[in-house]
């Protein structure tokens, strides 16, 4: 039985809503005012699109993974091992010019792996001033040595500047290699490659599942917000928005709890008995051996240089 207000195109005269929304009516004027309000994005909109956009871009980007480049051609276990060797080497380097060479090498690797060099440099240096810079600044003033400049009564020493540059460069070079690994390797391949360090398979499975379900929850959050938007005619005030967000957080918690039970059931159903078995499908090629050999050679070279110095 159709309610009397539920009118179709055929029997619709002037609908109550239509009358109240006509431009001449006072309600119509308030609607126009609401439209102006709606042009400014609500806090929910900004927060949700900010969080989901950042996570999808930062974690799920596969733009460069599919490209045909140097690092993409190296088998994940060897790539991880080589990059970790480079990072260990960077941590023991003492000379600024060697650190600069490592950084330059990472940029060359980015170029050889078809990664946009500007995008790569920007990605690395976006967080360096924030994290490494803030830590390094006190060293400029606090390290004893030969003063080169006075700043509001504090002496900036040559040794202080050198220590700060060394620190920032070390962080930048290390971050560059990690970014190279992330941009050229699928997340699940990185996870599998971790097994080379004897990390338990169940731990790796949980990490990969977390990654997979973060995406699902992000999509659910987006869908819920779009569903709200599609039914929002009057605009939303902050209080309503907060109420909606609180309700949805509760719903998501329930949903993820139910999903986790179903996932566990699906695993048990296919024979999971607490012990995880995974397929190791990586095969090493000549290039992989050369890559690891090169990284190891550099490590030994830096060790010898340090020993001499």
């Amino acid at each position, binding site marked *: 039985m159709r309610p009397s207000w539920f009118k179709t195109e055929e029997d619709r005269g002037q609908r109550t809503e239509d009358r109240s929304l006509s431009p001449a009516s006072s309600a119509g004027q308030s609607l126009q005012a609401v439209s102006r309000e709606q042009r400014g994005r609500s806090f929910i909109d900004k927060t949700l699109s900010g969080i989901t956009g950042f996570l999808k871009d930062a974690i799920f980007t596969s733009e460069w993974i599919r490209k045909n480049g140097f690092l993409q051609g190296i088998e994940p276990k060897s790539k991880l091992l080589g990059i970790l060797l480079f990072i260990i080497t960077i941590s023991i380097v003492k000379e600024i010019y060697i650190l600069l060479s490592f950084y330059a090498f990472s940029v060359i690797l980015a170029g050889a792996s078809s990664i946009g060099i500007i995008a790569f440099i920007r990605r690395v240096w976006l967080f360096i001033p924030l994290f490494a810079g803030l830590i390094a600044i006190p060293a400029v003033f606090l390290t004893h040595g030969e003063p080169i400049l006075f700043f509001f009564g504090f002496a900036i020493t040559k040794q202080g500047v050198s220590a700060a540059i060394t620190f920032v460069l070390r962080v930048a070079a290390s971050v560059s290699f990690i970014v190279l690994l992330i941009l050229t390797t*699928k997340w699940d391949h990185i996870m599998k490659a971790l097994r080379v360090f004897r990390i338990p398979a169940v731990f790796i499975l949980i990490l990969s599942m977390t*990654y997979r379900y973060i995406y699902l929850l992000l999509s659910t959050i987006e869908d819920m917000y779009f569903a709200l938007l599609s039914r929002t005619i009057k605009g939303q005030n902050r209080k309503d928005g907060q109420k909606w967000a609180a309700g949805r957080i509760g719903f998501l918690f329930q949903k993820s709890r139910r*999903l986790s039970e179903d996932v566990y059931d699906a695993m048990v*159903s296919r*024979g999971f008995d607490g012990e995880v078995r995974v397929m190791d499908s990586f095969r090493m090629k000549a290039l992989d051996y050369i890559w690891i050999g090169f990284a190891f050679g550099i490590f030994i070279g830096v060790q010898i240089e340090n020993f001499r110095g």
Partner: protein
Amino acid sequence: MKIFEAKEVGYSYPGNIKALHGVSLAVDAGEKIAILGANGCGKSTFLKILNGLIFPNTGEVNVSFPRSAWECVKLSEESLKGVFNRLFRSRVALLFQNPDAQLFSASVRDEIAFGPLQLDLPQDEIIQRVEDALMLLRIEHLQERSPYELSIGEKRKVAIASLLTVNPDVLLLDEPTAGLDPRSTRELIDLLIEANGAGKTIITATHDLHIVPEIADRCYVFNEEKMIASEGKTEAILSDMALLKECNLIHIHSHKHNEAWHSHPHGH
């Protein structure tokens, strides 16, 4: 030989929410049967019970496997351990209604290999089974993709492939055609007919009546009281309009034929 025998099975979810009440049925090895019912009538819960994932509060389910030493074993937490658990998991597979619950691995290939890996099959055989399943479901192009990159229809195909690699004797399918386009639905039906021809038992829970004549010789109809309202040959069940209407499986559908409106019962 009866592969499953459920006797007066009752189940309630926490909070005393009744999901099944006094359900009794028997399934012979090699049969194909359908469990019909509207949303929320307990079909999914019953399939989970048959798959030994949850256990009845009242009544019992017994399982027997041909060509094995296990006959009339009561499904319970105690029985589903060790050797019998491995045998049961290799013989009975469940397709979940929500493919996101079933696809937990990081890539399609890993997902399809998960079952045979847990059963400790040799590496070469696992690789062969994965290749065959990918080809059978025509999803070779998806093998390196992550489940989150797939459409709902693709997810369902991957979920089905992940069951086939286990090579079970019994396939429990919960709404297998939900989200599939007409061509994929047809391919799935053909696959199920072929699997049944190869001796596999197929138990499908659905409310999609138009696929039932092909995927089931017998039907059990669940009603809104979460009980079996009727059982019988597929033809007899599908022609009982009063029963189907009472169990919310059909509705009167009106549409236009040559400028004239006409109404008839509609079942999907």
